[in-house]
């Protein structure tokens, strides 16, 4: 009986409500995290698609430029990129090279985080799309040209619709990686999951329970996103095109 009395003692109840309040505070950071990753993935898509198309079909000098882009953004750690962009990478360009901006360009932490993650993701996504473009049978481009399509329109109407479908599984992989990279954005002071968790953990010293909770949140967000993309993959799958695997009988 004492045990139950203790279980519902005011101290424990308060601790539970305290935790649930803190947990709520952390969980509300999911909104920031989701917005951050959604915008970064979108930026990566918008930049990555033309990057990959140029890498495959572009003229040599442009290919070199896209190669340079991919080389740079895959080579620099996200953390370094965030500091570079947040602490005036653009200021540097502005003050030493051009005089593009009248005022100093100040990025909010959130914008800087979106920009860093998006620019880096564009490099990775361009490689996903490149592989997908190359896996579309090249005769289809030839057939489209023979019908009178310009190369650009053939790529837009024939190649990319197929390449994008092929990219979804790899894209969902990129999502799950970028989602966890987004945790680094706490260093800039974005109020996403990780920043809130660190705040709670360091004020209450209850590190384990808060970090476990944050881990759980990331786990759920990953699962949800991957699930969503799997549904999309199924929805846009080309009928009859085999996705089945040959299984040898033992």
């Amino acid at each position, binding site marked *: 009986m004492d045990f139950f009395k203790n279980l519902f003692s005011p101290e424990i109840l308060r601790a539970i409500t305290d935790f649930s309040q803190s947990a709520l505070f952390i969980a509300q950071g999911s909104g920031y995290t989701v917005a951050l990753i959604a915008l970064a993935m979108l930026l990566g898509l918008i930049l990555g698609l033309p990057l990959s198309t140029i890498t495959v079909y572009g003229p040599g000098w442009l290919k070199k430029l896209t190669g340079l882009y991919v080389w740079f953004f895959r080579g620099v750690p996200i953390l370094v990129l965030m500091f570079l962009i947040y602490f005036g990478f653009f200021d540097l360009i502005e003050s030493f090279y051009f005089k593009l901006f009248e005022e100093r360009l100040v990025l909010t932490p959130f914008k800087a985080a979106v920009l860093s993650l998006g620019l880096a993701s564009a490099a990775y996504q361009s490689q996903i799309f490149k592989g997908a473009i190359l896996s579309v049978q090249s005769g289809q481009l030839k*057939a489209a040209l023979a019908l009178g399509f310009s190369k650009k329109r053939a790529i837009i109407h024939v190649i990319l619709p197929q390449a994008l479908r092929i990219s979804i599984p790899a894209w969902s992989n990129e999502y799950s990686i970028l989602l966890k990279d987004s945790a680094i954005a706490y260093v800039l002071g974005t109020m996403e999951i990780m920043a809130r968790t660190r705040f709670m953990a360091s004020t209450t010293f209850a590190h384990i329970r808060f970090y476990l909770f944050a881990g759980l949140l990331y786990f759920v967000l990953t699962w949800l996103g991957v699930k969503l993309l799997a549904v999309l993959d199924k929805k846009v799958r080309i009928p009859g095109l085999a996705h089945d695997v040959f299984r040898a009988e033992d």
Partner: protein
Amino acid sequence: MTEPRPLLEVSRVTRVIDGKKILDDVSLSLNKGDLKVVIGPSGGGKSTLLQCVNFLQVPNQGDVFLDGVSAREMSRHNINLFRQKIGMIFQDFNLFDHLSARDNVAIALRKVKGQKKAKAYQRAMEELDRVGLADKADLYPSQLSGGQKQRVSLARALAMDPMVMLLDEPTSALDPELIGEVLNVIAQLSYSGMTMLMVTHQIGFARHLTKEIIFMEAGRVVETGPPELLEGGPGGGRAAEFCAKLAEVTGR
């Protein structure tokens, strides 16, 4: 009476890839309604010739004229307009995998000719009906047999109202059972007056339909003549020899 101006004229086309002459000074011409058949061993430049006709490969020398219009001249402005008027059929069909049979036929009408969806679909159905596939309009390429795929690709080319059709071994990737249905469509086309240049190994078929066989080897037109050219016998030319070898293999 003067000869009518040929509808399609290939004039002294040479194509060099990596220092190797794939096509060496090839000339030929087709009048309206002609079906000419190109035969010859692999690597002889037959496919390259067809791709040079619509400038999918740009000849290093020479030019192609369609109804008197120079492809080289067009390629300085808009080669796509030139290509629109030439239908092309490939050995491995090259259908657009992400589109249904109907959309495969309609997409160029919509995106190249700028037709409204309803109009393009109506035309697509007419063409699919012509090749006997109206009931397969909603199926995707991977749900069709090889013969059906090739017929869809014929419908796709015909929907653009081409002046000339180029056929690059249209039956080579097909099961023997499925070759007939494709050849039937091609024969129908020829009877209806379509001008066609066809690369094929279907010698028997070629013999019945064409008035002129063009035998190519090592990038050159070696022999040109009526189908009797292929009849063997002592003193037969290179084409007859080639056909005799084909007959040995097929037993015909």
